[in-house]
């Protein structure tokens, strides 16, 4: 049964679910935004410290399904040290990848391509994009919580 789900629950995803990276509060964060997926109970907060237009540091805390947690973990790894413009561009590519809309430059996504399988499971797209939407809101200085609904 589980072999059928390998496309979604890849080893990298399972690893990041068990041991999420950058998983901690950040004191002295410039931005702190909450994100919620009310339909399934995913809930996280993204913390960002900016230096000029660079994401100097990014971390997160939260609870949720394996897809949302591993996505948050991999997102923080991908975005840390990048410029806000690069983070924005990456979010666009990631969104295309998981929704199978538009074209995604898979090569530029690196490890994030493990989420390619999410498109087969439309019910899980919002789980995968929650952390990215929340990160985007944090970078843009939005203060209200993000919701997938």
């Amino acid at each position, binding site marked *: *049964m*589980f072999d*059928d*789900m390998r496309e*979604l*629950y890849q080893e990298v995803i*399972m690893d990041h*679910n*068990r041991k999420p990276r950058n998983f901690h509060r950040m004191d002295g964060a410039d931005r702190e935004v909450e994100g919620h997926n009310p*339909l*399934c*109970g*995913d*809930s996280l907060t993204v913390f960002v410290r900016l230096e000029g237009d660079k994401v100097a540091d990014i971390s997160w805390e939260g*609870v*949720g*399904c*394996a*897809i949302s947690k591993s996505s948050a973990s991999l997102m923080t790894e991908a975005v840390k040290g990048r410029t806000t413009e690069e983070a924005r561009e990456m979010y666009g590519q990631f969104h295309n990848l998981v929704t199978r809309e538009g074209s995604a430059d898979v090569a530029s996504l690196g490890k994030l391509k493990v989420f390619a399988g999410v498109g087969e*499971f439309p*019910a*899980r797209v919002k*789980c995968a994009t929650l952390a990215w939407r929340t990160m985007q809101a944090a970078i843009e200085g939005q203060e209200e919580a993000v919701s997938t609904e």
Partner: protein
Amino acid sequence: MKQKSDAATAPAPFDVASVRAQFPVLAQEVHGHPLVYLDNAATTQKPAAVIDAETHYYEMDNANIHRGVHELSQRATRSYEDARAKVARFVGSDDPAEIVFVRGTTEAINLVAQTHVRSVLNKGDEVVIGESEHHSNIVPWQMLCDQVGATLRVIPIDDHGALRMDAYEDLLSDRTRFVSVAHVSNALGTVNPVQEIVRLAHAHGAKVLVDGAQAAPHIHVDVAELDCDFYALSSHKMYGPTGVGALWGRRELLEAMPPYQGGGDMISSVTFDKTTYNEIPYRFEAGTPNIAGVIGFGAAVDWVTGIGIEAIAAHEHDLLEYATERLSALPGLRIIGTAPEKAAVISFTLDDIHPHDVGSLLDRAGIAVRTGHHCAQPTMAHFGVAATSRASFAAYNTRDEVDALVAALAEIIEVFA
């Protein structure tokens, strides 16, 4: 005169294989595995007899009811009113006029809130509900209390998921006008001590509505035994079509209630100066109803009665015990809802594995459970969880299906470890 089964016409011993054979939907594979449908608390599957009853109506008898003088209208009206009598008998009433057809339990509760309770509830008065209620038995009362300036009081549950009767007694006062509780909790499976709840409410001059959505399919319901004032049930939770349910109400209460929705059929006469309302139950059935659905509902009542509610209850109780034992043996599995008296509903969590993942993976094995808050967010909050996975059983489920669930969960636990 209540209908009782007697020895001469006792139903045949429960034969789950022959029960399953009556449900066309069960003979399919999902993602390459035989369907294991364990989401019955969300909705039940329909036997051929129910599907055929609706089909027959549309093929042979379809016409609008109550107003026509032609043959099809007579047939449709007879079938519709026969269903009303069947539902009345099913809940233990010999008076069909005490059955109002509605869209479902949710509409039944809203109807009572906005008619009977609205007419007796004043500012400063109180309505009592349980902590473990489904949102349909919370929100209508919140809305009503807001409208009127009344207070909503909540009976807490204990850590087994049973209503705390000591706290309930403390909550009741001379300001209590109405009590509304579930017969069976949809998220926890708890069977509430409704007779005692009613007795105490009446002692304080309050009337009682019982939400029977999760009870009617699974346990014997008798409104005379319960002595409640209103009882709500849904067709689709008991092997009948969606979009139809019933409200049973004591005749004298229904007769005193103002109408709910205005329109055709609920009137006696209409002029622009004055409109008069119809007698019960028609006063509460505005517009053309879900005629086919009601007829299907009647067929579902026949089907359940034919097997015997006690036989179904015994079969499900065996599944509950077996499943509880096998699930409890899985590492990291915690059952939420451990009251001594339960219907066949098992909500559970797995350590470090989110219900959403559990549900998706079980689905790939052909197993349907529900994950989430089950429209009972306060219940989830009580147990400190955002969501649970819930397996809920019906007449056509088997021990083999429990084994399939346990095997799949064991695999999930291993992979996530």
